[in-house]
């Protein structure tokens, strides 16, 4: 169990990469990219976990009463979520335009740029 959570992160990352490489639909590809990113959330939060610890919020917890998990990775994960959401929005906007200009969202049928 010591490394299980980390292995989940590795698995999720690779699954996302596989999906991206074999995708037949650009919307699906953008989704796969989000899957890859989810791996980073899992990794960060797993790294910050501490046994029998609670959230690092002291509005209803006396400081020092209980161990708390690492707040830094939580802040990093929040940043990461925002970055991921914005990248997804931007890429989907590009997919909308690809679909209009090329009439397809299948990457196999986009053949403008090559050689």
């Amino acid at each position, binding site marked *: 169990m010591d490394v299980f959570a980390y292995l989940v992160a590795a698995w999720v990352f690779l699954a996302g990469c596989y999906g991206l*490489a074999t995708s037949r639909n650009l919307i699906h590809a953008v989704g796969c990219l989000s899957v890859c990113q989810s791996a980073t959330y899992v990794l*960060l939060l797993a790294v910050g976990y501490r046994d029998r610890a609670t959230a690092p919020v002291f509005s209803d917890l006396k400081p020092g009463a209980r161990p708390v998990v690492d707040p830094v990775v939580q802040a990093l994960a929040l940043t990461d979520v925002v970055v991921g959401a914005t990248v997804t929005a*931007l890429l989907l906007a590009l997919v909308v335009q690809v679909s209009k200009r090329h009439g397809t969202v299948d990457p196999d049928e986009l053949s*403008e740029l*090559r050689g």
Partner: protein
Amino acid sequence: MHHLLPLLVAVPLLGAALLAAAGRRVPRAAAESAGCAVSAATAALAVVLLLGSSPPQAEWVGGWVPVGGESVGIVLVGDGPGLGMAALASALTLAALVYSWHYFDEPPRGHSGSFPALLLLFQAGMCGFAIAGDLFNAFVWFELMSVVAYALTGHRVEEARAVQGALTFGVVNSLGAYAMLMGIGLLYARTGELGMTRIGQELDAHGPPDALVLAGFVLVLTGLLVKGAAVPFHFWLPDAHAVAPTPVCMLLSGVMVELGAFGVWRVHDTVFSGPGGLPAADVERALVALGVLTAVVGAVMCWYQRHIKRLLAYSTVAHMGLFLTGIGTLTPEADDGVALYILGHAGVKAALFACTGILLDRYGSVDEHALYGRARRLRGVAVLFVAGGLGLAGLPPFGTALGKSVTEEAVGGPLTVLYVLASAVTAGAVLRVAARVFPGLGPRPEEGDVYETTGSGEEPETRQRLSRVPDTMTAIPAVLLAGSLAVGVVPGFGGAVGHAVQEAGTGGLVHVSVHWTAPGVLLGLASTALALALAAVAVSRPRLLAAPDRALPLRRLQSGHVGDYVAWLLVGTTLLGALALPGILGS
């Protein structure tokens, strides 16, 4: 003074926010002037900070100065290389803003401020990345730079190619960035720190490197090398550069890609160079191998292009290979040379893109064959284009020549041949284009039906085709070329750059004098002569140097398919890991 470091980011951001907020009310000319003013102010700030950067400065944002060597804040590093890259990025942003002044295609209705605002955000992202001393903070600015670059690349949404190129760019670079974040997560797990120097110290304290350090190194470098377009992470670059608006190309090729190489240097130097990092021999093997591969592939593909922007993009790939090779030898002399080479290259490459943009806006094409002999009357542009080609070859006294000769001397041996050949082939391709497009030398190029992207059927970026070329559009490449020349000519400049790089890299322990040498000048002249000869043969006897059939497999790799590029990214990460593996196994 060091308190002012964060303003390198804050000033352009404030400008962008105000432009976006007021962009609906103010006329276009006012918005563009404001953009130029803010960009220029940031550039001036960067130069002032750069002049005061000896000894290197550090600034803890939010005033979280370390207590007992430990801090909870973010550190910014104000040393020569970082501030130099910030100054370069700012100067090129200003050039791009002036170049697009008033003539660039209409912005979205009611958003006259949006294009300058995006360029200012780009500038802020690049400055932030250049001065970041904290690994996660570097990732954040890296992402800002990427996100803005995707939007700017796809800015001409009416063009089918533009949106496809931008999407590929976005997917591949985002995946690289997430790999980098995985690496940062691994390093944080081991060390419990995020500051680059602190991570390095903790790794050293932990003992000799193991698989985790290797994985951290490989994953962080994957992100940076995707940005730095090292083979086989490079496929996005030609697709994106071929379709991005010209002012954006100037920034992408001139400084953003180079920031990837800068990041490799910074991260290796601060995090992985100690006894707990990776052994120098392994890093050298990995970076030099990828660098050589990149230079060769970039140069060969550059020669076979007829789409001028794509040709220039591949020449950037080839030069990135040269920069990576130099950084990979891990010697202070090579670092000096690469710093100068990057400065000289930025001016030359941005100028060449600017000239290509003029062709596009005047004739509605960037295709070497379609433009054959059509630009006879643009004599001024022709002179600039040829000068750019010669600068790319490394003709003394261009800054490229000084940087190249210093690097060649540092790497020595067979790698010198690589530097001469890669710069000669890419410059030869540029000069071939110049000879065909401007005076129309040689026979009319034949139309082939091979696997390639032509440059015809492109829409001008201005509102309509230009009947005369505006002065700003010709002045910018001239100024950029003059800047590149100044890097090589101004007495003491090379020495100052070398000193700044040494102070940041070795802490000032090593003093290397940077100056012109006779072998360096001769090698520069040799690659220029070779470039001219290649161009002459290609123009007069097109068959002799045309793409042979056996080059086709290499060209087919550039398929425009995002799935292929992702597969190559995985292969590249594996390759990087395999190249750096022996040292881990041995220890």
